């Protein structure tokens, strides 16, 4: 996949050129592209003077980073204990069938990605789904289409 490489350079340019800035730079790249493109990892490694092996180690360690392209809308489904009891599994199945993909996958048109998370700390609102950082509580299966913004 081709990327606007100038965007990567722009992000790197505005950060301090030191190893300590690694995670911050990766976060900015992740925010821009919704994932970490291969070119971005090598460019970051070169600019900050961090070996590529280290950059890759960090980017595979944190769940917040993805190495595969993700959709514009990221749907996080909480499967923590409270949400689980409140039927999060059913909500997940409903969303999966709405979008025709499984958890962890991205739709072909690159619009949606489903992620399962273990607790988002909003147990009182269980079951919770988060669509692009907006929290939705007490979700029912018949609301999922509306929350995802699909007809």
């Amino acid at each position: 996949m081709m990327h606007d490489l100038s965007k990567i350079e722009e992000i790197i340019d505005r950060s301090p050129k030191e190893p300590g800035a690694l995670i911050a730079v990766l976060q900015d790249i992740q925010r821009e592209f919704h994932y970490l493109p291969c070119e971005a990892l090598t460019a970051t490694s070169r600019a900050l003077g961090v070996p590529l092996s280290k950059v890759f180690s960090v980017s595979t360690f944190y769940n917040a980073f993805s190495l595969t392209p993700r959709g514009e809308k990221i749907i996080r489904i909480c499967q923590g204990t409270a949400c689980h009891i409140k039927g999060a599994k059913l909500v997940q199945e409903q969303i999966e069938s709405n979008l025709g993909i499984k958890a962890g996958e991205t739709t072909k048109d690159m619009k949606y990605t489903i992620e399962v998370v273990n607790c988002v700390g909003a147990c009182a609102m269980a079951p919770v789904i988060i669509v692009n950082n907006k929290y939705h509580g007490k979700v029912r299966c018949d609301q999922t289409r509306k929350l995802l913004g699909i007809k």
Partner: protein
Amino acid sequence: MVTITINGKAVQANEGEMLLAAIRRQGIDTPALCHHDAIEPCGSCRLCMVEITKKEWEGWTRSVTSCLYPVEPGLIVSTHTPQLLELRKTILELYLARSSQSEVIQKMAEDYGITHSSFPVIPDGDDCIMCYACTRICEELGCFAISAVDRGHDKKVSGPLRQPPPDCIGCLSCAHICPTGFIKWQDLDSTRTIWERQFELLSCRTCGKRTITRDFAEYLMKKRNLPAAYFELCDDCKRTETAKTMGKIVVAAQEVLK
């Protein structure tokens, strides 16, 4: 010098050194897998745990990894209490469950009277115990070719981008330091294969013996500012050459002294 007590015996230890070194100097067998003198200790294998206390701790004890705990004056160390033996047995059983085929671990477990693990054996478990001795030595050498990738169950050592590591120089340090011999390599004619990469092996100008990889030689030339001629001979032939030169010097000196 610092005075500590190990298993009831007062011993001298060097200031700043770790407990494991002081214990091993006494000839006390303390198992460890992740420890190697060439690299900084990291305490990941947990086998070198010992019990420490001090007079003023009023009976309180702590279990610590001896490879990471610096000696302190007045420290009282026990290396083989029943609790420690139990702890090591549990750890060895866990290792045995993960790396059931590893001879090193089998032998270590046997020494502790364990022949099988009470934990379910991981069917596709390998001999890698995630001690990162390989990545640590690679960092120490300044190559940073390999690193730990992913997390949790999927964690493994790999080259960046899950590809054969481009910065690897085929020095075999990782393979030699690996406590379980998990990292495999092969030397076939003039080709060395490691981490799914192939390296050209240099040969000795005199005897033809294969020496080190070209990448490794180039790395050393740059890092240590050595001439290319330094890598033309194998260690044995280098020694012979040196002996010959020394012999000539001695003969010449004798001539002068006559």
